[in-house]
């Protein structure tokens, strides 16, 4: 209705912008905020999203991917704690590429159409989404990249001198990653009954693809619990309304 679904450039806060450019940029920012929450709620509550990707221009804001969604120190001598807002990139309360992936997950695995898929089609989509999620994970800098799994609380430790924004963001990205891993591979749960007779032959009770997804779901769930026990001590109080 307001037109935020169409691409509009978002000018950096320290650059000059006319009133029209400011209004266009703000509208596009509001679009992305609505998009993030719509896709997150749709996935978590198993409700259809209200914003259809087919009718939205999902071109990312200029320079968004280059920032790698974390605050990068400008020089070796500058303190990462010096987080003047003018120097910060657009961070948003979620990650835009993960939001588009959440829409895909909901549509390909948990929609009414997805319920009609054969087992082979389902596993094809699970594999495709798993690869997309890992591609996103690999796009992050190594120091911020979520671990494939967390079995040791010491894996949650993080260099202190990175500032509160990065700390919060790292925690959220880890939890988001493991949540999506669980959600993607949990879809395999509807597929096969256990086959005790296969245990002697294949070494596991289910088919290879199902067993692998079950393993990944459980491992991601365990990683989430271990991570929550330790890393969330660094959560800022403002994160909770």
């Amino acid at each position, binding site marked *: 209705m*307001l037109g935020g679904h169409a691409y509009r450039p978002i000018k950096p806060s320290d650059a000059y912008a006319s009133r029209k450019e400011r209004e266009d940029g703000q509208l596009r920012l*509001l679009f992305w905020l609505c998009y993030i929450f719509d896709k997150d709620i749709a996935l978590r509550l198993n409700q259809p999203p209200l914003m259809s990707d087919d009718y939205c221009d999902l071109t990312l804001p200029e320079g968004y991917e280059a920032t790698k969604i974390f605050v990068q120190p400008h020089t070796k001598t500058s303190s990462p704690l010096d987080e003047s807002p003018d120097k910060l990139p657009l961070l948003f309360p979620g990650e835009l590429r993960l939001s588009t992936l959440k829409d895909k997950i909901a549509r390909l695995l948990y929609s009414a159409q997805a319920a009609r898929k054969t087992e082979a089609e389902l596993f094809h989509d699970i594999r495709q989404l798993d690869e997309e999620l890992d591609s996103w994970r690999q796009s992050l800098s190594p120091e911020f990249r979520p671990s494939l799994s967390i079995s040791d609380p010491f894996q949650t430790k993080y260099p202190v001198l990175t500032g509160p*924004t990065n700390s919060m963001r790292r925690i959220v990205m880890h939890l988001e990653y493991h949540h999506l891993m669980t959600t993607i591979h*949990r879809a395999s749960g509807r597929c096969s009954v256990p086959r005790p007779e296969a245990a002697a032959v294949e070494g596991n*009770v289910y088919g290879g693809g*199902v067993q692998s997804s079950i393993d990944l779901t459980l491992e991601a769930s365990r990683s989430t619990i271990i991570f929550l026990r330790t890393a969330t001590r660094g959560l800022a109080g403002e994160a909770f309304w």
Partner: protein
Amino acid sequence: MSALAEPSRYQSFTPPSYLQDVLPASPARGDTTGVAFSQIHYGGYHFGKISHHNGMPILSEEGRQWISSRTGEEVSFDKFRPVAEQESWLSISDRRLREAPDQSCDLPPREIVQQALEGFRRSCCIKVFPILDPVLFEDTIDLAYEPLLEPLRLDQITARCCVFAFLAIAFMYSGNFIDGPMLDSDTFAAKSHHMLADVLDDSSVVSLQAIFMLVCPCPSRFVLCSKM
């Protein structure tokens, strides 16, 4: 390397034979047609469903039995419920407006709003939660503080609603910039909510901002996304 290529240390399991009679069989291999999409399945067994209200799993009787058989404990989510029933902010809204109905549209001193805006502009929130542009919001504040004259203008009501909503969340980032007593976020939220019925008729960026600041923690996203 994809996680699918990484081996897991998870040990496979075999459910006891008596549960195989109790638990409903999954659809035949390759046929998932009869399965509703909000259901939870594990290893082909039906465990329950995802609540459409809060996203929490609701276990079926079969799911409870399966978990009890594995853990030796009775499954109960009662301990995860709030210790005391919290008064919802909607009832707070109604109560506070009944106590002072004539002051429902009164704004605080403009200086308070300016300080809150300055706090927002200087905090990292402006990049994490870019809900408004500080320059454009000055116009919204100007409109909100114009005297209310009959007939009331919808854009002015919307502007006031937006300012109240902004003040309701100002505590998150403006604490160091506001002198005087702490902001009563609940009262500001209640005042903003009281105006929502009129604001919903206004399709503008300002109304969208007001609604988003009020409702974004809640799964009531219908109004937001339909306007966008």
